[in-house]
């Protein structure tokens, strides 16, 4: 009798575990299905777009905060002569500068521009964070933000790649989008340029580029899956 009683909670535990484990396996780690195979939980394209747009919005918010901090503490005068000569290292990437230009651009091109931008910022942001961590001028809050920014760029790029894969899978875009854009091709031959970029310029450039990414993603979404929020 005692043995039976003891075994009951064990059986109960096993049952509970099974139930929960089944639930767990069905959530979280489900990969995005390349084919519509059964047992695979596929996210819709609209859902994917929403996620990457939210991600890019957050990334832009952080970059905006950091830029404001820099502007407040390191550059008292807002209108400095010579700011126009600022040269972002991503200026070589051709990006549409207006609504018509962006709408005229093909989806594949737009997707590729986004990916190029994200790829171009991976290393500079990482170095920026490293520089901040060692520099005691910046507090921990700013340093954490820089790290978060650098992580987000990486994550966002992966997200956008997934979106591109999904779009390609759905036939929305052709397979000309290459997600294996090599970072070296994006940088100017003189890779020392972005080393020389001052932190403030770097932040200014990244703030703008993150805004571009967010905007292009929105345009893509409203063009491809205009159901919600367009």
């Amino acid at each position, binding site marked *: 009798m005692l043995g039976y009683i003891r075994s009951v909670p064990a059986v109960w535990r096993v049952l509970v575990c099974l139930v929960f484990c089944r639930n767990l396996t069905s959530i979280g780690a489900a990969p995005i299905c390349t084919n519509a195979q059964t047992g695979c939980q596929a996210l819709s394209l609209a859902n994917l777009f929403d996620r990457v747009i939210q991600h890019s*919005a957050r990334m832009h918010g952080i970059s905006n905060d950091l830029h404001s901090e820099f502007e407040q503490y390191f550059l008292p005068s807002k*209108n400095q002569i010579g700011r*126009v*000569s*600022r*040269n972002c290292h991503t*200026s070589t990437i051709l990006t549409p500068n207006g*609504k018509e230009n962006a709408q005229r651009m093909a989806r594949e091109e737009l997707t590729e521009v986004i990916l190029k931008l994200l790829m171009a910022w991976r290393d500079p942001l990482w170095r920026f964070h490293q520089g901040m961590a060692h520099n005691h001028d910046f507090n921990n809050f700013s340093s954490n933000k820089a790290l978060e920014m650098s992580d987000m760029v990486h994550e966002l790029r992966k997200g956008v790649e997934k979106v591109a894969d999904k779009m390609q899978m759905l036939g929305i875009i052709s397979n000309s989008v290459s997600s294996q854009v090599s970072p070296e091709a994006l940088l100017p031959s003189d890779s020392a340029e972005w080393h020389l970029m001052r932190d403030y310029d770097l932040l200014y450039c990244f703030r703008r580029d993150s805004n571009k990414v967010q905007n292009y993603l*929105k345009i893509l979404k409203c063009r491809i899956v*205009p159901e919600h929020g367009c």
Partner: protein
Amino acid sequence: MKEVMEEAVLLFLLLVIYTPDAQGTRYSPPGKPELTRCRSPEKETFTCWWKPGSDGGLPTTHALYYRKENSDTIYECSDYHTAGENSCFFNKNDTSIWVNYNITVVASNALGSTFSDPVDIDVVYIVKPNPPEKVTVTVMELKEWPFLRVSWEPPHKADTRSGWITLIYELRVKLEGDDEWEMHLAGQQKLFNIFSLRSGGTYHVQVRCKPDHGFWSEWSSTSHIEIPDYLHREKSMWILIAVFSAFIFLILTWSLHMSSHRSLKHCILPPVPGPKIKGFDKQLLKNGKSEDLLRVLVVSDFPPTTPSNYEDMLVEYLEVYVPQEQEVLLEESKDLHDSCLKFEGSTSDNDSGRVSCDSHTLLMDKCGEAKEEGRQTDQEDSTTEAEAQGQQKDWDQDTLMYANGDILSPEKSSGRVKTWPSVFSPLPQYTLSLPDQTSSLEMAKQHCYSDSLFCPGSTSSYLTHLGNNDNETLGPGSWEICLSNRQPYSHIPQMQTCQQVRSHSDVNISTIARKQEPAGLPLPFFRPTAYVEVQRFDEEDMVVLQSIVSDHGFHEGFPQMLQQEDYSKVKGVDSNNMLLLQTEAMKEDGDGTTPHKPTAHIHTVVSTQDEMAQPASGYVDTATIFTLPTY
């Protein structure tokens, strides 16, 4: 006259000459203009406004020049009119987003030109949309409760459909006549419900919008909406009010009725019962004359002449009475006695409160406790003992002796103790009629017996510190027990021998010292259940014990056990002249000074100075030895 005329002409000429100089000769280049702001309504075009400086007296013109990022080409504004005066409108072709513009305004007149400070702008960050359009407000109902539904559309210029701009909205509501608006953030939705409404009022609603990173638009034009009256919604309120007023009305009538019959006070505040003692005059208390009080309280037929229930007396008890020299204490602690006696008298009355015995005497506490409906539990006994012990200031705590409980084996003592309350049940019968104070005190003392052996020294001075056998000096660790002489049990001649008792921490029995003033020893009665009752005291300081079963007479003489029946046998007397009794058949024995023998015998302490250290092999239930008066 002529001079006056000349002066006037001179003045006039001067005026004419100088005034034109003030205006005309001070021509200067224009003052520095200033770019006040640049705004874009839809992120596709933008406008910049400037404030001109002084014009220097000459007609001045302004021109706006701008340069785009990473380009050295300087452009001039192509549209100065669309946006009004002192403005420059950049159309779609001239506007580039995510491009830094460096804009300068130049004011020039015939004398020169002045450049303003340059301004850097990026169109993305200067977006201020137009207010939302087509704001509609309707009253809708949800389960008979009204609410407002507000809907709107984005400004027609802002292209949210293509995702170029993302707008978030905010609306505000207020009642007509209010000063403060109620703000609601609506996010990206174009529909909003407002629930907290007051019926029968007019509401004003306004909406505005903002892009992700930009400026809030102006508030839309106010929409007015009137909420119709919803009386049914407030029905519940009226019902509540009606019920409440009815309730208040009821209370008022009831209170009036009550007050008219003068019974309200009795209803709410019942009178506190006063103390009632049979045959007792409250005024005596108030007068504070203790002698009168004592006389009143003294019961004539105390103690009862006939023992009521021998069977009830399961235990024997030692009656301790006041030795002669302790009478001073008696006098001193009359109040205790009084309280004790009072306590007696009050047991018969349910209403009367319990008189609290003075705390500094051991038994007085027990007195109060014991009187508790004539009943006590074991726990109470032990607690009272504990209390009494704790409160013993006068007595050395080590030497405190208890009739039961600590000293004796708990089981047995408790067994004994249980019966004691029954002793008290007949107590109320007899009250106060002892002839003299001493006996009354004895009575009181007897009443005061609960579990403890002794009554506090006050009433009976039964417990006193005795230093030596001779009852003269009270040394530490010795108690004097006086057995009181009680009528029904007084086999012993009228002698109260208080035997000095030495108490030890492991004491079993306190020996009894002799008292000088025998007031008559009430003899403990013998019980068939192997109890011993002290029969009497000898002049030789002997406790004569008698077994309960057989009602032998006492025999004088030596501290002998009188009984063949089993009763408490004296284990012996220890070095401190303590009588150790043991429950066994006793034999006559000789001297109390002999050490404990297995054969039961009771040794009475003859001379207290004798060291009769008896090993306490067993114990004697002092409860057996000390009998409580049965009243």
